Protein backbone atom coordinates (compact mmCIF):
# COMPACT_ATOMS: atom_id res chain seq x y z
CA UNK A 1 0.00 0.00 0.00
CA UNK A 2 1.33 3.39 -1.02
CA UNK A 3 0.14 6.93 -0.50
CA UNK A 4 -0.07 9.10 -3.60
CA UNK A 5 0.12 12.87 -3.78
CA UNK A 6 -1.42 14.09 -7.03
CA UNK A 7 -1.09 17.74 -8.00
CA UNK A 8 -3.44 19.23 -10.60
CA UNK A 9 -2.78 22.72 -11.95
CA UNK A 10 -4.13 24.85 -14.76
CA UNK A 11 -1.93 24.87 -17.85
CA UNK A 12 0.20 28.04 -17.96
CA UNK A 13 -1.77 29.66 -20.81
CA UNK A 14 -5.14 29.19 -19.03
CA UNK A 15 -6.40 32.24 -17.13
CA UNK A 16 -6.32 31.58 -13.37
CA UNK A 17 -8.81 34.05 -11.88
CA UNK A 18 -8.24 32.81 -8.32
CA UNK A 19 -4.49 33.24 -8.73
CA UNK A 20 -4.97 36.77 -10.09
CA UNK A 21 -7.23 37.77 -7.19
CA UNK A 22 -4.74 36.35 -4.70
CA UNK A 23 -1.93 38.17 -6.45
CA UNK A 24 -3.75 41.48 -5.98
CA UNK A 25 -4.47 40.69 -2.33
CA UNK A 26 -0.84 39.80 -1.67
CA UNK A 27 0.30 43.08 -3.23
CA UNK A 28 -2.17 44.96 -1.06
CA UNK A 29 -0.54 43.25 1.93
CA UNK A 30 2.69 44.89 0.85
CA UNK A 31 4.36 41.89 -0.74
CA UNK A 32 5.17 43.29 -4.16
CA UNK A 33 7.94 40.68 -4.49
CA UNK A 34 5.31 37.92 -4.97
CA UNK A 35 3.93 37.37 -8.47
CA UNK A 36 2.39 34.80 -10.80
CA UNK A 37 0.31 33.00 -8.17
CA UNK A 38 -1.29 29.88 -9.64
CA UNK A 39 -3.90 27.94 -7.68
CA UNK A 40 -4.17 24.18 -8.09
CA UNK A 41 -5.52 21.14 -6.31
CA UNK A 42 -3.83 18.38 -4.35
CA UNK A 43 -5.39 14.92 -4.06
CA UNK A 44 -4.09 12.35 -1.58
CA UNK A 45 -5.09 8.74 -1.83
CA UNK A 46 -3.95 5.26 -0.88
CA UNK A 47 -3.36 2.63 -3.51
CA UNK A 48 -3.21 -1.06 -2.71
CA UNK A 49 -0.29 -1.70 -5.02
CA UNK A 50 3.50 -1.60 -4.73
CA UNK A 51 4.57 -2.15 -8.33
CA UNK A 52 5.51 1.27 -9.69
CA UNK A 53 4.50 0.52 -13.27
CA UNK A 54 1.04 -0.55 -12.14
CA UNK A 55 0.73 2.49 -9.88
CA UNK A 56 1.69 4.68 -12.81
CA UNK A 57 -0.92 3.06 -15.04
CA UNK A 58 -3.74 3.48 -12.50
CA UNK A 59 -2.86 7.04 -11.55
CA UNK A 60 -2.47 8.15 -15.15
CA UNK A 61 -5.64 6.48 -16.34
CA UNK A 62 -7.71 8.07 -13.55
CA UNK A 63 -6.03 11.45 -13.94
CA UNK A 64 -6.85 11.55 -17.64
CA UNK A 65 -10.41 10.32 -17.13
CA UNK A 66 -11.47 12.14 -13.97
CA UNK A 67 -8.96 13.84 -11.68
CA UNK A 68 -7.74 16.32 -14.30
CA UNK A 69 -9.23 17.85 -17.43
CA UNK A 70 -6.25 17.70 -19.75
CA UNK A 71 -7.77 20.34 -22.03
CA UNK A 72 -7.00 22.96 -19.39
CA UNK A 73 -4.96 21.21 -16.67
CA UNK A 74 -1.76 19.28 -16.16
CA UNK A 75 -1.03 16.80 -13.41
CA UNK A 76 1.93 15.24 -11.70
CA UNK A 77 2.18 12.81 -8.84
CA UNK A 78 4.58 11.55 -6.22
CA UNK A 79 4.59 8.19 -4.50
CA UNK A 80 4.88 8.95 -0.83
CA UNK A 81 5.89 6.56 1.92
CA UNK A 82 4.53 3.10 2.45
CA UNK A 83 1.21 3.18 4.29
CA UNK A 84 1.14 1.08 7.45
CA UNK A 85 -1.43 -1.70 6.95
Amino acid sequence: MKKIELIVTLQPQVLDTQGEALNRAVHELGHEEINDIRVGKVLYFDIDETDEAKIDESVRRLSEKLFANTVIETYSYTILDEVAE
Partner: protein
Amino acid sequence: MKFAVIRFPGSNCDRDMLNAILKSGGEADYVDYRETSLEGYDGVLIPGGFSFGDYLRSGAMAAVAPVTKAIVEAAEAGKPVAGICNGFQILTEIGLLPGALIFNDTHTFISRDETLKVTNSRTAFTTGYQPDETVTFPIAHGEGHYYCDDETYDALKRNNQIVLKYTDNPNGSRGDIAGIINEAGNVLGMMPHPERALEALLGSDDGKKIFENMANWEAAHNEIQ
Protein backbone atom coordinates in the same frame (compact mmCIF):
# COMPACT_ATOMS: atom_id res chain seq x y z
CA MET B 1 -39.75 12.79 -30.49
CA LYS B 2 -39.27 11.59 -26.96
CA PHE B 3 -36.51 13.15 -24.89
CA ALA B 4 -34.67 12.03 -21.79
CA VAL B 5 -34.10 14.92 -19.38
CA ILE B 6 -31.15 13.70 -17.34
CA ARG B 7 -31.28 14.43 -13.62
CA PHE B 8 -28.05 14.48 -11.64
CA PRO B 9 -27.87 15.29 -7.94
CA GLY B 10 -27.70 19.09 -8.04
CA SER B 11 -29.42 19.59 -11.41
CA ASN B 12 -31.78 22.55 -11.01
CA CYS B 13 -33.06 23.41 -14.49
CA ASP B 14 -34.55 19.98 -15.12
CA ARG B 15 -38.17 21.14 -14.74
CA ASP B 16 -37.60 24.07 -17.11
CA MET B 17 -36.07 21.69 -19.67
CA LEU B 18 -38.98 19.26 -19.41
CA ASN B 19 -41.48 22.12 -19.66
CA ALA B 20 -39.68 23.58 -22.68
CA ILE B 21 -39.73 20.39 -24.72
CA LEU B 22 -43.32 19.47 -23.73
CA LYS B 23 -44.51 22.97 -24.66
CA SER B 24 -42.80 22.60 -28.01
CA GLY B 25 -44.71 19.45 -28.89
CA GLY B 26 -42.16 16.86 -27.80
CA GLU B 27 -42.49 14.13 -25.23
CA ALA B 28 -40.10 13.79 -22.31
CA ASP B 29 -39.31 11.95 -19.10
CA TYR B 30 -36.88 12.62 -16.31
CA VAL B 31 -34.12 10.02 -16.36
CA ASP B 32 -32.01 9.36 -13.29
CA TYR B 33 -28.21 9.56 -13.67
CA ARG B 34 -27.93 5.96 -12.38
CA GLU B 35 -29.75 4.57 -15.42
CA THR B 36 -27.52 2.80 -17.91
CA SER B 37 -29.82 2.73 -20.92
CA LEU B 38 -31.64 5.42 -22.88
CA GLU B 39 -33.48 2.94 -25.07
CA GLY B 40 -36.77 4.32 -26.33
CA TYR B 41 -35.57 7.93 -26.31
CA ASP B 42 -35.00 9.91 -29.49
CA GLY B 43 -32.92 12.64 -27.87
CA VAL B 44 -31.20 13.78 -24.70
CA LEU B 45 -31.44 17.04 -22.74
CA ILE B 46 -28.81 17.77 -20.09
CA PRO B 47 -30.06 20.54 -17.81
CA GLY B 48 -28.26 23.25 -15.94
CA GLY B 49 -27.46 23.34 -12.26
CA PHE B 50 -24.57 22.20 -10.14
CA SER B 51 -24.35 18.47 -10.76
CA PHE B 52 -22.60 16.73 -7.87
CA GLY B 53 -22.06 20.12 -6.28
CA ASP B 54 -19.46 21.00 -8.93
CA TYR B 55 -17.06 18.75 -6.98
CA LEU B 56 -13.56 18.70 -8.50
CA ARG B 57 -14.65 20.69 -11.61
CA SER B 58 -18.08 21.58 -12.92
CA GLY B 59 -19.36 18.61 -14.89
CA ALA B 60 -16.46 16.30 -13.97
CA MET B 61 -18.42 13.89 -11.79
CA ALA B 62 -21.42 13.81 -14.14
CA ALA B 63 -19.07 12.87 -16.97
CA VAL B 64 -18.31 9.56 -15.25
CA ALA B 65 -21.87 8.85 -14.03
CA PRO B 66 -23.53 5.56 -15.09
CA VAL B 67 -25.83 7.26 -17.63
CA THR B 68 -22.95 8.87 -19.52
CA LYS B 69 -22.16 5.88 -21.71
CA ALA B 70 -25.77 5.89 -22.96
CA ILE B 71 -25.54 9.64 -23.69
CA VAL B 72 -22.43 9.03 -25.78
CA GLU B 73 -24.20 6.21 -27.65
CA ALA B 74 -27.19 8.47 -28.37
CA ALA B 75 -24.86 11.17 -29.69
CA GLU B 76 -22.99 8.68 -31.85
CA ALA B 77 -26.30 7.40 -33.23
CA GLY B 78 -27.01 10.93 -34.49
CA LYS B 79 -29.78 11.70 -32.00
CA PRO B 80 -30.09 15.31 -30.83
CA VAL B 81 -28.22 15.92 -27.57
CA ALA B 82 -28.39 19.37 -25.99
CA GLY B 83 -26.61 20.53 -22.87
CA ILE B 84 -27.42 23.89 -21.39
CA CYS B 85 -25.24 25.68 -18.83
CA ASN B 86 -24.00 22.85 -16.58
CA GLY B 87 -25.13 20.55 -19.39
CA PHE B 88 -22.61 22.27 -21.71
CA GLN B 89 -19.90 21.86 -19.08
CA ILE B 90 -20.80 18.16 -18.82
CA LEU B 91 -20.65 17.69 -22.62
CA THR B 92 -17.15 19.16 -22.77
CA GLU B 93 -16.06 17.02 -19.81
CA ILE B 94 -17.40 13.92 -21.58
CA GLY B 95 -15.56 15.02 -24.72
CA LEU B 96 -18.65 15.16 -26.95
CA LEU B 97 -17.85 18.84 -27.50
CA PRO B 98 -14.35 20.35 -27.72
CA GLY B 99 -12.85 22.89 -25.32
CA ALA B 100 -13.66 23.56 -21.67
CA LEU B 101 -15.57 26.03 -19.50
CA ILE B 102 -13.47 27.87 -16.94
CA PHE B 103 -14.21 30.59 -14.38
CA ASN B 104 -15.62 33.86 -15.73
CA ASP B 105 -12.72 36.26 -16.13
CA THR B 106 -14.20 38.44 -13.34
CA HIS B 107 -14.53 35.35 -11.12
CA THR B 108 -18.09 36.44 -10.31
CA PHE B 109 -21.35 34.57 -10.82
CA ILE B 110 -23.33 36.45 -13.47
CA SER B 111 -27.13 36.18 -13.61
CA ARG B 112 -28.87 38.49 -16.06
CA ASP B 113 -30.39 38.74 -19.53
CA GLU B 114 -27.77 38.61 -22.22
CA THR B 115 -27.95 39.63 -25.88
CA LEU B 116 -26.66 37.03 -28.28
CA LYS B 117 -26.23 36.59 -31.99
CA VAL B 118 -27.26 33.38 -33.78
CA THR B 119 -24.10 33.03 -35.85
CA ASN B 120 -25.14 29.82 -37.55
CA SER B 121 -28.82 29.37 -38.36
CA ARG B 122 -28.05 26.49 -40.75
CA THR B 123 -28.12 23.86 -38.03
CA ALA B 124 -31.00 21.59 -37.07
CA PHE B 125 -31.08 23.33 -33.66
CA THR B 126 -31.14 26.90 -34.96
CA THR B 127 -32.98 26.71 -38.27
CA GLY B 128 -35.77 29.28 -38.36
CA TYR B 129 -33.63 32.00 -36.79
CA GLN B 130 -32.49 34.65 -39.24
CA PRO B 131 -28.77 34.71 -40.05
CA ASP B 132 -27.09 36.80 -37.33
CA GLU B 133 -30.45 37.31 -35.60
CA THR B 134 -30.14 38.95 -32.20
CA VAL B 135 -31.81 37.06 -29.34
CA THR B 136 -32.10 37.56 -25.59
CA PHE B 137 -31.53 34.60 -23.25
CA PRO B 138 -30.81 34.73 -19.53
CA ILE B 139 -27.38 33.62 -18.39
CA ALA B 140 -26.60 32.35 -14.88
CA HIS B 141 -23.13 30.98 -14.44
CA GLY B 142 -19.81 31.35 -12.66
CA GLU B 143 -17.88 29.11 -15.03
CA GLY B 144 -19.00 30.08 -18.51
CA HIS B 145 -15.73 31.27 -19.98
CA TYR B 146 -15.28 29.10 -23.07
CA TYR B 147 -11.67 28.03 -23.48
CA CYS B 148 -10.05 26.16 -26.35
CA ASP B 149 -6.64 26.08 -28.02
CA ASP B 150 -5.88 27.70 -31.39
CA GLU B 151 -6.26 24.48 -33.33
CA THR B 152 -9.71 23.80 -31.87
CA TYR B 153 -10.80 27.40 -32.40
CA ASP B 154 -9.75 27.30 -36.06
CA ALA B 155 -11.63 24.01 -36.53
CA LEU B 156 -14.77 25.44 -34.88
CA LYS B 157 -14.70 28.39 -37.24
CA ARG B 158 -13.84 26.31 -40.31
CA ASN B 159 -16.71 23.87 -39.69
CA ASN B 160 -19.24 26.57 -38.72
CA GLN B 161 -19.62 24.98 -35.30
CA ILE B 162 -20.04 28.29 -33.46
CA VAL B 163 -23.82 28.81 -33.30
CA LEU B 164 -24.19 31.53 -30.67
CA LYS B 165 -22.01 34.48 -29.73
CA TYR B 166 -22.32 37.12 -27.01
CA THR B 167 -22.69 40.64 -28.36
CA ASP B 168 -21.10 41.99 -25.16
CA ASN B 169 -18.87 39.19 -23.86
CA PRO B 170 -19.71 38.80 -20.14
CA ASN B 171 -17.20 36.12 -19.14
CA GLY B 172 -14.07 36.24 -21.29
CA SER B 173 -15.13 33.43 -23.64
CA ARG B 174 -12.80 32.94 -26.57
CA GLY B 175 -14.23 34.57 -29.71
CA ASP B 176 -17.37 35.59 -27.71
CA ILE B 177 -18.52 31.97 -27.95
CA ALA B 178 -21.78 31.22 -26.11
CA GLY B 179 -22.75 27.99 -27.86
CA ILE B 180 -21.27 25.39 -30.19
CA ILE B 181 -22.26 22.19 -31.96
CA ASN B 182 -20.22 19.10 -32.74
CA GLU B 183 -18.97 18.45 -36.25
CA ALA B 184 -21.88 16.13 -37.06
CA GLY B 185 -24.34 18.84 -35.98
CA ASN B 186 -26.40 16.78 -33.52
CA VAL B 187 -24.78 17.81 -30.21
CA LEU B 188 -25.36 21.36 -28.94
CA GLY B 189 -23.79 22.99 -25.90
CA MET B 190 -24.57 26.51 -24.74
CA MET B 191 -24.17 28.52 -21.56
CA PRO B 192 -27.26 30.78 -21.93
CA HIS B 193 -30.70 29.44 -20.99
CA PRO B 194 -33.21 29.24 -23.89
CA GLU B 195 -35.49 27.16 -21.62
CA ARG B 196 -35.91 30.33 -19.54
CA ALA B 197 -36.90 32.35 -22.61
CA LEU B 198 -40.21 30.82 -23.68
CA GLU B 199 -42.72 33.52 -22.69
CA ALA B 200 -42.69 37.11 -23.93
CA LEU B 201 -44.65 37.99 -20.79
CA LEU B 202 -41.68 36.83 -18.70
CA GLY B 203 -39.10 38.75 -20.70
CA SER B 204 -38.32 36.83 -23.87
CA ASP B 205 -39.63 33.98 -26.00
CA ASP B 206 -36.53 33.85 -28.18
CA GLY B 207 -35.66 30.35 -26.98
CA LYS B 208 -38.76 28.61 -28.31
CA LYS B 209 -37.36 27.76 -31.75
CA ILE B 210 -34.49 25.68 -30.37
CA PHE B 211 -36.93 23.36 -28.58
CA GLU B 212 -39.43 23.33 -31.45
CA ASN B 213 -36.61 22.27 -33.76
CA MET B 214 -35.60 19.45 -31.44
CA ALA B 215 -39.22 18.32 -31.06
CA ASN B 216 -39.48 18.24 -34.86
CA TRP B 217 -35.95 17.03 -35.48
CA GLU B 218 -36.46 15.39 -38.84
CA ALA B 219 -38.22 18.42 -40.29
CA ALA B 220 -35.54 20.70 -38.87
CA HIS B 221 -32.90 18.45 -40.36
CA ASN B 222 -34.57 18.52 -43.77
CA GLU B 223 -34.80 22.30 -43.66
CA ILE B 224 -31.03 22.71 -43.65
CA GLN B 225 -30.32 20.19 -46.42
